[in-house]
């Protein structure tokens, strides 16, 4: 019996970074999965939820629950969005008529590398970088601390040809993004970003890899602002073999 697997691209990888969306989809195909892409999907609701607007978050989450109701697995290239669905949908829908559905969906949602390694048992995706490269992982907070994702991306990256993985000091330190935090508490978020940029600048690697497009947007926005040519890339891009740097 083949699982019905849905791909949740996330709003940010759909609109801001479609290349990450494509890479995630491609990686699943490489792993032998034929994911479906439910066309009605939008967002998990996290922006409103993190701002304390639970009613608004629930309205968007209800839509999510409807769209993804019929799948055995929902895979997304974001630890943050996966954590929103897995941890907070059960709370958000407590006592709600869709509680059971939300609970089921929470149990079936996976971050991409978690799904590849822990569910499918994938190791080698036959990916390669164009030239010998030292790379480090920036662990995105919600995936790392919320879902315990640290081993999976490193394992998958260890099979990528031309890639030597090193650890960055402060690899698990927040970049300061935090959704609306970056806008509402801009100076504070900016100070955290500066710390992250300093950590990145002090590593001797050519490539920083992360699992969340939102952190990537934030850190790259900071690198661009200070005139640095370096960029963070998404792990799906590395695993799909279409990363430019």
């Amino acid at each position, binding site marked *: 019996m083949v699982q019905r697997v849905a791909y949740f*691209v996330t*709003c940010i990888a*759909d*609109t*801001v*970074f*479609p*290349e990450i*969306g*494509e890479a995630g989809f491609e990686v699943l195909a490489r792993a032998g999965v034929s994911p479906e*892409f439910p066309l*009605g999907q*939008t*967002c998990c609701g996290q922006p*409103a939820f*993190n*701002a*304390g*607007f*639970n*009613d*608004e*978050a629930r*309205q*968007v989450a*209800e*839509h999510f629950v409807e769209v993804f109701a019929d799948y055995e697995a929902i895979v997304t290239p974001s630890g943050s969005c996966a954590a929103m669905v897995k941890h*907070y949908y059960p709370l958000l829908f407590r006592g709600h008529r869709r509680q059971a559905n939300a609970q089921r969906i929470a149990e079936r949602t996976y971050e991409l590398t978690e799904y590849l390694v822990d569910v499918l048992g994938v190791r080698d995706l036959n990916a390669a970088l164009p030239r010998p490269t030292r790379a480090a992982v920036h662990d995105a*907070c*919600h995936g790392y*601390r*919320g879902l315990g994702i640290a081993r999976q991306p490193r394992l998958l990256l260890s099979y990528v040809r031309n890639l030597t993985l090193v650890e960055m000091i402060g690899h*698990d*330190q*927040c970049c*300061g*993004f*935090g*959704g609306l*935090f*970056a*806008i*509402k*508490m*801009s*100076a*504070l*978020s*900016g*100070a*955290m*970003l500066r*710390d992250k940029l300093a950590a990145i600048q002090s590593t001797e690697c050519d490539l920083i890899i992360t699992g969340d497009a939102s952190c990537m*947007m*934030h850190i*790259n*926005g*900071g690198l*661009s*602002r200070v005139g640095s040519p370096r960029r963070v890339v998404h792990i799906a891009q590395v695993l799909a073999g279409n990363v430019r740097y």
Partner: protein
Amino acid sequence: MEAVPFERAVHLALADEQLQIALDRGTTRGVNARLAAMGETTDPQALRHQARLARERALNRLPELLEQLERNVIANGGHVLWARDADELNQHILTICRQHNVRHVVKAKSMVTEETGLNHALQAHGIDVVESDLGEYIIQLAGEAPSHIVFPMLHKTKEATAQLLHDKLGMPLTDQPEVMTRFVRGVMRQKYLQADLGISGVNFAIAETGTIATVENEGNNRLSTSTPPIHVAVMGLEKVIATWEDYAVLVQLLSRSATGQRMTVYNNLISGPRRPDEPDGPEAFYLIILDNGRSRILASEYAESLACIRCGACLNACPVYQNIGGHAYGWVYPGPIGAIVTPLLRGPLTAPRLPYASSLCGACQTACPVEINIPDMLLKLRRDLVQAGDPTLGWRIGMRLWAIAFRSPLFYRLGGRIASWLTRALARDKGYLRRLPPPFNGWTDHRDFPAFGAPSFRARYLARANSRSNGKR
């Protein structure tokens, strides 16, 4: 109300070079010490969980344990007083001072007395009070407030400290902490001998024997509680624990998490005043148990926050605290736990920015020795603020519109396309925007914003699906 608006306090902290140096040194040392000390235990996660269970055992039957504690303290020859709020606690101590004709007080470190503003209350009645903890003494000299639960002068560099001791007490300038410590010790000795009453905090109150436990490294707590003829210990009512077994778990986690020590240099265990067969100790012992909003928290969905053992690990680990230090939080309890405890103790609208002063990165929860889920409580406090109508009308309308757009695939696509077109039209160099209009300008104050990729993933997916099905035909 916040003394200084939070945004302003953040601005000042980020611009303060001395503070930034001190924060970097202090928090880095704190984090590394904790990681090393926790790392040498056989199973740090199991230990944390044991500690959590010990705290839950206490909180689950708090009224009963407090009564047991009271009975046992009295049986040991001590007095127990209850304080509903800060003012009542200060009044109790003033009454004791009056009864015993107290002029001079020495006080070992106690966050609860910071919470009640005890020093001011005593001084207003002409009673001289001296902090005996080195860090607390130095900031008392400087006329400042503690900026950290465990390291009250974490915001001060040793260079600034030497200058202060030189200016205030005539200490010859030095850059050696040992020399400064020895100098202050000489000053402090006189204070102990002079004091009529000693005050201390409580780290744990062990109900089954009526014993109060404190941890310290300077011996100042021991001197403050045993030299003067009267000892007054003050505690928040959540500090009670059931048994010595629970103490054994909690005390090692406290010292490992707070200072990275297996054990602090002094572990004081006090069960009442001096007994007839004992050579020293105070003639009278009072334990004052403070509520000040805690029983209300216990009955709420924030009860978990009372499990806190005030180790300060979440402060050190927090990237926000690392950048702004403790004073920016505006009240006694800073850092992630302070962002929860402050609005809970004083009312949500007294500190409406604190729950938002977090990227929800979770470093605090990972550091917490009793597994307190701080990010979840910050989220709940944000929800409470929204329900209380705190966010501006603009934000409320904005979120309403966002929800309408994002629950409709049509509006979502349309919005995405407009944003994509706009950002691409306005992007200049290398696909980035240097400036966004309000309310998004906060973003571009500190980083560039990328132009959206085009076409969207959805459009690419559909195009591919179409070409596949055309090819099949």
